[in-house]
């Protein structure tokens, strides 16, 4: 690990100015991913600006009925918040399906969103990886890639985004509040994350030095009927092979509105807009759910060893929507 300086941020403005002015600087939250990267040599910042104590630890109502989640709210505290549990159960369920109790107790909301892929080549500095070292090549294309992307990948990178929370937030249409030296901006989470294209070193559209301060959830009454289903190799404490966040509004057997996002399938949390379009106005039946899932997955381009994810994603979408709509009927 190369030596680095450490500063505890006094306020947002100075933290943002400090990191922006120093190319080798990075923000530090709880460090549950970054400290691992320091050990592995994946990240080598020369300055850490600790933002975990900035006053963003609140979950507050927004005018218009939404909820603002502060960037430093810990994953455990967010998962168990009574308002989140009741109004956005998919957010609680997503968080509770990730990591372990002791990691969730420290990991922050913004840190969860900014965590990086667990692609083994990204984490192994002895191997080529375009995300870690642009232009060095992608070892996963012909190597180990059963955990990797089936949607939206490029020949430069087939990694998947690891966050469960981000999948739920993508289904909800959350908006990320960002502070930079040029001021604040709001970024819909669907636009925060990038597909790899030819620049997989960039997970998000954030500029160096921009800091997430909060995540806003829209009012979205249908989210009270929402959930998160995660399929993985072991029962707990593992990343998703495939996951589905969904909310559905059904009236007399017909889907009035629906939100679906997929995890474990792409470089970003994947909003399943084709499936949503196919479902609006459709009967709430397994056949319709399957047809919608297949419409979404028609664009899937699996690799040699991850074709299993296509039927797995289809079946998980169907199972999740079935679970929600069975509960829906009184």
């Amino acid at each position, binding site marked *: 690990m190369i030596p680095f300086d450490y500063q505890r941020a006094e306020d947002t403005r100075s933290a943002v100015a400090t990191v922006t002015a120093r190319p080798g600087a990075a923000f530090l939250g709880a*460090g549950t991913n970054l400290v691992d990267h320091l050990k592995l040599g994946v990240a080598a910042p020369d300055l850490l600006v600790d933002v975990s104590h900035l006053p963003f630890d609140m979950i507050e109502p927004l005018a218009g009925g939404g909820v603002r989640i502060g960037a430093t709210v810990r994953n455990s505290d967010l998962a168990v918040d009574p308002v989140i549990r009741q109004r956005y159960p998919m957010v609680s369920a997503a968080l*509770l399906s990730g990591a372990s109790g002791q990691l969730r107790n420290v990991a922050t909301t913004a840190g969860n969103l900014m965590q990086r892929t667990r692609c083994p080549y990204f984490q192994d500095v002895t191997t080529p990886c375009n995300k870690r070292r642009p232009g060095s090549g992608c070892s996963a294309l012909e190597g180990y890639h059963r955990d990797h992307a089936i949607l939206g990948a490029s020949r430069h990178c087939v990694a998947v985004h690891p966050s469960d929370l981000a999948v739920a937030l993508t289904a909800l249409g959350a908006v990320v509040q960002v502070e930079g030296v040029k001021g604040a901006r709001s970024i819909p989470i669907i636009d925060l994350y990038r597909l790899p294209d030819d620049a997989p070193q960039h997970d998000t559209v954030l500029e160096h030095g921009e800091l997430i301060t909060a995540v806003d959830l829209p009012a979205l009454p249908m989210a009270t009927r929402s959930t998160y289903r995660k399929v993985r190799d072991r029962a707990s404490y593992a990343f998703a092979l495939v996951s589905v966040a969904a909310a559905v509004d059904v009236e007399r057997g017909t889907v009035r509105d629906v939100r679906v996002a997929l995890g474990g399938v792409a470089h970003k949390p994947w909003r399943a807009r084709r499936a949503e379009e196919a479902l609006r106005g459709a009967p709430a039946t397994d056949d319709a759910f399957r047809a919608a899932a297949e419409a979404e997955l028609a664009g899937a381009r699996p690799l040699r060893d991850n074709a299993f994810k296509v039927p797995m994603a289809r079946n998980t979408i169907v199972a999740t929507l079935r679970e929600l709509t069975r509960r829906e009927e009184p």
Partner: protein
Amino acid sequence: MDVEIGLRVDGEPHRLVVDTRTTLLDAMRERLGITSPKKGCDHGQCGACTVLLDGRRATTCLALAVAHDGAEIVTAAGLADGERLHPIQQALLDHDGLQCGYCTPGQVCSAVGMLAEAEAGWPSHVTADLSGAVELTDEEIAERMSGNLCRCGAYANIVAAIREAVR
């Protein structure tokens, strides 16, 4: 870069100068001689380094010491009341909830933290109703303890010990 920090571990105050690269785990083990928290994977995956950090269970291998100036830490060694073991510790002994024992201090701290979380009504991944009451079934205990690996495979007895301690 060296920074002076203060830590309170098992009731004892300590002041020390650490390199910014030092984890909380290494600060305790290598600098303060507090070896109850164990270094297993050193990547946050095994839970052997779990302590109660400012009252909540947390891994210490992924925490930078410099970021935890002023922290209050309780290790498994600090949970006993003199010669009287904490009920979780006693239950692990009574149920053979260990073989080599290397993961045990982490298991103990994790179990103590987990019971407080359940007491506070926190649901888990396997809780059917997110807003309902929490009943610590074996399935709930296993899920909530999944951040602590045991290479000897004493899981069945660890679950039994925690089940017993809950009563």
